[in-house]
């Protein structure tokens, strides 16, 4: 299963590195979102800096939608999805591979966004360990739910509109917990983040578990 996961993740990441859709489209999209938040809230850093954790995670959530849609768009061309189904790879491995490819791209994006909120909103970075832990656990949860709903929506004609509606309410706890953890770290009290990190870990573990079980039948149906 893990070998299959590495294969699928390697394939997805190789496509992304060669096509540069993530770099050319998802990255600039996230920067545009950060700039728009700045316009919406005004230039006052006393307003922007305390809100930067929440704005960071909303930008991540929206970018996840694009990354997931991209992850399944590459399967739709040339009947690649049928190829994946016929490849004999373990469906759980395919799920883990696709989810980790999405997670890897999101982590790179988050590094860029962190620089963005520091420069644009004047967020003062502290508690690096908590920031990184929240990113790791939160991103895994987002990637797992995204990949799961992505396969549900991928074969459907209304996938572009359906995926956000299915995805966003479910990941509300990730937005909440990751924002609180980042808030605690940025405020210089990383010890207050402990419980929120637990929420992120529980969420990620739960949805990775569901994904490994449910992905096979969902892939068959599409």
């Amino acid at each position, binding site marked *: 299963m893990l070998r299959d996961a590495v294969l699928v993740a390697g394939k997805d990441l190789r496509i992304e590195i060669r096509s540069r859709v993530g770099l050319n489209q998802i990255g600039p999209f996230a920067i545009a979102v950060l700039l728009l938040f700045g316009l919406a809230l005004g230039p006052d850093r006393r307003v922007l800096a305390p809100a930067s954790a929440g704005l960071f995670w909303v930008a991540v959530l929206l970018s996840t939608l694009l990354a997931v849609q991209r992850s399944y768009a590459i399967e739709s061309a040339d009947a690649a999805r049928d190829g994946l189904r016929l490849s004999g790879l373990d469906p759980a491995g395919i799920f883990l591979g696709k989810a980790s490819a999405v997670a890897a791209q999101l982590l790179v994006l988050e590094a860029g966004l962190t620089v963005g909120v520091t420069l644009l909103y004047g967020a003062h970075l502290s508690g690096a360990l908590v920031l990184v832990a929240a990113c790791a656990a939160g991103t895994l949860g987002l990637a797992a*739910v995204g990949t*799961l*709903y992505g396969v*549900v*929506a991928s074969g*459907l*004609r*209304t996938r572009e509109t*359906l995926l956000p*509606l*299915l995805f*966003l*309410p*479910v990941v*509300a*706890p990730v937005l*909440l*917990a990751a924002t*609180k953890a980042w808030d605690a770290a940025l405020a210089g009290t990383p010890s207050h983040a402990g*419980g929120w990190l637990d*929420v992120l870990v*529980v*969420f990620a573990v*739960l*949805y990775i578990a*569901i994904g490994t079980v*449910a992905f096979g*039948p*969902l892939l068959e*149906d599409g």
Partner: protein
Amino acid sequence: MSTPARVLPQDRPAALRVLGATALVGVVATVWLGLFVTPPDQFMGNLVRLLYIHPPMAWVAFLAYGVATLASLLYLWPRTRAEHFDRLAGASAEVGVVFTGLTLVSGSIWGRPTWGAWWVWDPLLTTTALLFVLYLGYLALRRVPGEFHVRARRSAMAALIAFVDVPIVYFSVEWWRSLHQAPTVLNPTTHKTYVHGSMFWTLLLGFVSFTLVYIWLMAHRYRLARLQDLEDVEGLEVALEERRAEGDAG
């Protein structure tokens, strides 16, 4: 050529009519008791009258989601897989969404004079609002056309994925608010102590009659879903017959 009228099974069974009439009488009685018979509350005044319908609506919403989840589970379980569980899940979730909407609206009307705001970020309210969009998504997914069993399995899994989220949402939101809760929300345990006499019976009647309304609506929605599926099958046969007749005539 007109569509041949076939006798459809279970077209408006009598028991359903009796149930509907009973539910209607119950709701009318609850409204009458709530508005005219029961006294105003010593703290909330006439506002208390909204509480005869608001908790029953919320109860029905959660009951409906519970039934939808159970039905989805039974559909996914190979031994109990049957078409009626899929229809049951869809019908129940649809009624649940309607009652979640009603719960939010009635709660908001009550909250405006009580809390001074149409909306407060209370854990239960926030969870209910998220549930509302969560299940709207589920219903949207159900509407996507497709082969029956593919659609049913997809929907059942989406229902379970959504349901797993409900406790996480609730606990994280509750924790979020309890860390810095400013407005004091009415404690449900304290106002329970002064629900007595006619107020208690009215509330109980509210719960019973709204539950009957739920069963009645769900039964009709189920019946409708069954007829729609039948129409899909029969419509194809009718169309085939028509084309054949055209071919024979030509």
